């Protein structure tokens, strides 16, 4: 009996073995996937599959295969792509997921469903909206950069460090996607025809599960991030503060050292008031005009900078309201703290009516090692 059970255990180990195996060498990894709207209501999935050889000696030889197929759903398309390649297709190391503009303007949850459902998928991947088609972005081969996934990932990491995006990945977006009274932004990239490069062009404003078509420009994105209370490794703002003959003398570039944002939401029956104040302690990193000698000059600059930034913040907020994109999660706040108010109103129609009172105060604390 003992021998028999031992035999059974051993054979269970040896014979069943490798059943669940997924050999790393036998998969084709899709490191970036693009989804576009196709013809006849179908969708197009484009993948870039790198194949590397020559591990061990010499330089790595890498060939990238870009395939795309039209299909009804994401997995249907994947199935079609799988038929075109050697070994089996595997998206579990996907680094970026690109959505074409037209597709994103429709509901995006249906195309993301598989990524959330499958435990193997990489929820750490970044989601990006492309102005134009995702296919075009994926086909781009930058000089020096080996892979489009590496290129895009690096670009997004840089944008996150410079506080241009929230740096959210698929997992973090999921909650915002399904939550009522909360919207989010997605990084937007476009193909720059002149420079022949991909470019981070701003933040796409989402309303519910749809891309509104409105965007916050890359220049204004850091301010929006600060208003939201997010700061990456650094925030740099270049603003016009003067009106001189020579243009270069008009501008000041500051880096935000410390910031303090405060949002007060006062809901009442018929109107909702939101006060947003943002205090910035900044360091001057570039001021071609020079002569930051006296207190007065600095005082004037503080004032001017505050004015400019306040105006800009108001501009951003009006754009958000126009797009009906509640990126500050004001709706959720009301839902949580003022449920009776929440019940009585329809947030989607209420949001554009919200009265925002925005104030940005900038104060120069340091001006580098020269005056």
């Amino acid at each position, binding site marked *: 009996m003992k021998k028999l059970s031992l035999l059974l255990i051993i054979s269970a180990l040896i014979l069943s073995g490798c059943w669940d195996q997924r050999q*790393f060498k036998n998969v084709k990894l899709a490191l970036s996937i693009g989804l576009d709207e196709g013809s006849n209501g179908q969708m197009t999935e484009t993948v870039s599959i790198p194949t590397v050889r020559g*591990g061990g000696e010499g330089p*790595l030889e890498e060939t990238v295969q870009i395939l795309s197929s039209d299909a009804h759903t994401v997995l249907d398309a994947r199935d079609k792509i799988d038929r075109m390649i050697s070994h089996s297709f595997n998206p579990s190391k996907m680094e970026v997921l690109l959505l074409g503009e037209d597709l994103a303007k429709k509901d995006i949850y249906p195309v993301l469903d598989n990524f959330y459902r499958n435990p193997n998928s990489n929820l750490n991947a970044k989601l990006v909206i492309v102005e134009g088609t995702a296919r075009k972005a994926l086909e781009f081969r930058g000089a020096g950069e080996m892979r489009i996934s590496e290129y895009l990932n690096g670009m997004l990491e840089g944008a996150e460090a410079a506080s241009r995006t929230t740096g959210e990945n698929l997992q973090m977006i999921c909650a915002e996607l399904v939550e009522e009274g909360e919207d989010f932004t997605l990084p937007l990239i476009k193909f720059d025809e002149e420079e022949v490069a991909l470019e981070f062009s701003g933040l796409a404003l989402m309303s519910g599960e749809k891309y509104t078509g409105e965007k916050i420009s890359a220049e204004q994105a850091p301010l929006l991030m600060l208003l939201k209370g997010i700061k990456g490794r650094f925030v740099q703002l270049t603003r016009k503060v003067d009106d001189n003959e020579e243009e270069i003398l008009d501008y000041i570039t500051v880096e935000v050292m410390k910031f303090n944002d405060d949002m007060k939401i006062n809901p009442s029956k018929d109107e909702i008031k939101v006060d947003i104040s943002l205090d910035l302690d900044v360091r001057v990193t570039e001021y071609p005009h020079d002569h930051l000698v006296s207190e007065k000059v600095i005082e004037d600059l503080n004032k001017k900078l505050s004015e400019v930034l306040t105006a800009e913040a108001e501009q951003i907020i009006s754009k958000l309201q126009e797009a009906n994109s509640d990126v500050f999660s004001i709706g959720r706040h009301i839902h949580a703290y003022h449920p009776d108010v929440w019940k009585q109103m329809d947030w989607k129609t209420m949001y554009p009516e919200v009265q925002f009172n925005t104030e940005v105060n900038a104060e120069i604390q340091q001006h580098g090692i020269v005056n």
Partner: protein
Amino acid sequence: MGFFKDFFHKDQRADRRISDESQEPKQPSTRNLSNNIDYILNALKRTEDLKVRILKKGDAALLYIEPLVDQDKVQMNIFNPIEIGRVDSIHDIPSAKETTNLEEAVNSLLRGHAVYLEDENRRVSQFSVTSVFNRSVEEPANEKVVRGSHDGFVENIMVNINLVRKRIEHRDLKVKFFKVGKKTNTNVAILYMEGLADPEVVLKMEERLEAIDSDKVQSPGYVEEFVEDSAFSPFPQMLNTERPDRVVANLMEGRVALFSEGSPTSLIAPATFFMFYQAPDDYNTRWYTGTFVRLIRLASFLIAVGLPALYIAIVSFHFEVIPDDLITPVKSSINEIAYPPVVEALVMVIIIELIREAGIRLPSPVGQTIGIVGGLVIGDAVVRAGLISNIMVIVIALTAISSFVVPSNELSTTLRLLTFPLICLSATLGFVGLIFGFLFIAVHLTKLESFGVPYFAPVAPLRLKDLKDTFVRFPIFMMKNRPKDAHPMDYKAIGESREWKKNEQSKKS
């Protein structure tokens, strides 16, 4: 309770010893010289190296086994006193040990003594003229240290006990001799500190030694397998060492050391798992260094046992955990390997074991050549040929190096063996298998006992105080108590030794 138990057991033991002695054969000598010689010759099966020197014109004889005796000693101890004229008869030489039992004479002949017999006399004189060939007490090649004492045990048990006694000049150090092996009659000694070592452990050791019923006992390796608790466990339950300082340190912790004639290795019991990771070097360097080195050594345990298994589990089941930036290098190196990772790993492990085994037995210049040919040439060629990926070479090489980090050779071989089941488990079940494998090892270690003492102490059972000398090494003056695992009778090891510091400070203020 324990005391009564000991008391009871001791009585029992004493009884048995007496009965043992009564069984020893006796053969009274006769007054007839040739009868006596005949008896001895027959007892020794008329072996031809037994030399019989006829003296006094046939009235007396000196017998000895020629290869065992030193001719100079025979001359000096037996003939010189006569020649000088200090004594009249060889029987009168004071260093002689006398008996009338011929059986005893036979035994002493085998020990290398010379036996003198006279006609018309029942007295048998025995002289110790054994020739001893000792190598010098050199540092053992497999337990070298950078700082600290550089002597090591030799094949002579007396020299070994001498080395220990020189280091512990205390009346409590007790030696007990045992004759083990019915034919080889090997001298085995156990050493312990009376009043410090747990009597139960000593008793267990004695009982088990006496229970050995074997024709030959060649080395401590033999003894170890007879006396250890779980002979089927992969882990060694007695610490082997050839270093006197290590034996002394363990004796002072209340453990028992076992020596056997003809082997420089001493066995220390009870042993714990973490003892195998303590090296004399830890205590000879500053404690920061000692701690750092010890942590590295313990990390090497995990690497040696688990790294190949972990790698296999990752590349054949869970490649999602590879960091994004490593994806391409890893993929490119394993993409064109013909075999699955398990086969790769097994082939590589076997290659390394072959090189190691070939290197040990060969003389050192050839051994080095083998190392170079094996390590460099095969390692490089195997990657170029596409049989094994270069990452696998790194993994296995790291594993092999880690297994050699363990200061004890026994545990090192154990670790290399444990790799195989884990490789198989992780190749069939991935991380699940790996975790189960580690779980089995942990359960086994926790369950294992060495002479009634938990093997995995002080981790299981957990005793925070004893962790001072487990994963880290605290300064010596802070390890005031002996570790509890050996059940020492007296816990206190160090008193206030740095009071001068307080005194100095109070003087200043």
